[in-house]
């Protein structure tokens, strides 16, 4: 299995590195956008999928990264400086917003974060001297290291790929530590987790803040991809889009955000013939998926992996624990 995984990783890496050389502009852009969405989805998966905290403020956190690079770039701050500032702001606001997360239950948290996203939008729109207000900021520059410039779409793709790799690796590193286990424990049984000493406060704050920080990174890479941002890019609708992405991919699974990001960027392309029906089909798909594949598309992925490697994986739906009174050990 280990060999398979290494092979897959190598193959995937080679494809990601080489195929842009043969891609036309349009597909290159889609690939870049997918990578940016992947970073954002990984962040939300950490917050929601692993630590079980619903966040409808992801687009708000994303805006911190986008505006940081857009505002600091013209002031001569290197691009990476902008990313760091934006990510730090997102992280800190994640901590601040994480506090109510401790006190309130899931659906209330949805409201708090939703409210936060709307307030962020209002501030971005109304603070004209800093953010350019409704008119946004255009001509956002792309990064350069000395003579090495990531100006062309292809070069910028590689730049995004670098960051995406970093994010994926760091998320993997976090999730395969004791933290990752604690996050899963909280999601699976919050009360039990607390009884085995998991500080809900610390872990929830961290999950929220790190998830938000990833959104900051994603946002910072998003702005130069479009070269233009305005507050309308960071509305509640986009937060919901990320939510859908993560849920469609598969919550609390490492593969989830990969599948979600690819599907959400490629689906419109597949459904192009449907013209005005795209959103109707999309929303129907979401409902059907919740009904018949609530674990997300990752369940289909598991099935494929299972078929390919002819190996039994744990079923997507573990059987419910037996009823206490009814079951006795056979003698």
């Amino acid at each position, binding site marked *: 299995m280990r060999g398979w995984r290494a092979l897959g990783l190598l193959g995937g890496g080679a494809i990601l590195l080489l195929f842009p050389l043969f891609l036309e502009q349009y597909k290159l852009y889609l690939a870049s956008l997918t990578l940016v969405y992947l970073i954002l989805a990984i962040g939300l998966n950490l917050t929601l999928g692993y630590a079980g905290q619903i966040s409808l403020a992801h687009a708000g956190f994303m805006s911190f990264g986008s505006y940081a690079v857009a505002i600091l770039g013209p002031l001569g701050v290197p691009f990476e400086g902008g990313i760091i500032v934006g990510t730090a702001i997102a992280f800190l606001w994640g901590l601040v917003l994480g506090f109510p997360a401790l006190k309130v239950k899931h659906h209330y948290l949805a409201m708090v974060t939703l409210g936060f996203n709307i307030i962020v939008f209002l501030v971005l729109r109304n603070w004209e001297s800093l953010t350019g207000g409704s008119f946004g900021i255009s001509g956002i520059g792309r990064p350069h290291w000395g003579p090495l410039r990531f100006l062309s779409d292809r070069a910028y793709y590689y730049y995004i790929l670098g960051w995406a790799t970093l994010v994926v690796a760091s998320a993997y590193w*976090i999730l395969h*530590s*004791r*933290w990752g*286990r*604690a996050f*899963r*424990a909280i999601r*699976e*049984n919050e*009360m*039990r*987790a*607390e*009884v*085995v*000493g*998991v*500080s*809900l406060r*610390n872990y929830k704050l*961290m999950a929220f803040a790190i998830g938000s920080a990833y959104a900051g990174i994603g946002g910072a890479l998003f702005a130069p991809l479009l070269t233009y941002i305005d507050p309308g890019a960071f509305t509640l609708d986009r937060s919901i889009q990320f939510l859908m992405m993560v849920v469609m991919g598969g919550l609390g699974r490492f593969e989830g955000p990969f599948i979600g990001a690819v599907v959400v960027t490629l689906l419109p392309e597949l459904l192009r013939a449907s013209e005005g029906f795209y959103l109707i089909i999309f929303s129907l798909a979401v409902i059907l998926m919740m009904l018949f594949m609530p674990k997300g598309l990752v369940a289909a992925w598991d099935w494929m992996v299972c078929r390919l490697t002819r190996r039994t994986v*744990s079923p997507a739906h*573990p*059987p*419910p*624990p*037996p009823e*206490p*009174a009814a*079951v*006795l*050990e*056979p*003698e």
Partner: protein
Amino acid sequence: MPLLEIRQLSKHFFHLSALSHVSLSVEPGELLGLIGPNGSGKTTLFNCVTGVLRPSRGHVFYQGEDITKLTADAVYHRGISRTFQLIQLFPEMTVLENLLMAAQERTGTLFTRLLRRDETEETDRALKLVEYLGLSGVKDNLAANLSYGQQKLLDFGMALMPDPQVILLDEPMAGVNPTMIKALVTHIQDLNARGYTFVVIEHNMEVVMSLCRRIVVLSQGEKIAEGTPAEIHDNADVMDAYFGS
């Protein structure tokens, strides 16, 4: 000084009183039984002690420290662990992971838990426990896929894993077959002999009478009796509470 002392503890849900003015103390190394009919407040008492519920009135002291208002994780860090009447596991983790989870927060700080990767020591301990409890065969199975008895044992193992000083067992024998009950009783006595303090809620009178040297009886949220098994056995109030008058 008692290890664990409960003073005048009360708990209300809405207008219903689940516990009223319960006081009891647990000495170091003791094996205390807690009995009472259904709904007499035993589990609520455990919940109040371990920080799962906040008591309405009264205090809980542990080694002289007032732990009434601590959250559950802080209580755990003091060295109190527990099991649950309705099994509470991490269903999508393996047996081994459940055990590791039960111990990982005991040492280090938040950040060393991210940075320190080595887990050989804990894994060794978990493997020993798995063997001790007879779960070796299923150690890599998901907790959700275990049989009820195995889940009970795992719950018990999770309580032992952090090497606590006081272990609160909430009906460890309920729904477990007689062979396993014997094994569990032996485990508990064995551990008690090694210095662990136990408080056991149990419905199986036979087990309680043979296991514990002191028993506390709750009924309708109040403590109605306390004494040796023999004293409890002869107490008219207790019989009343159980069988009605």
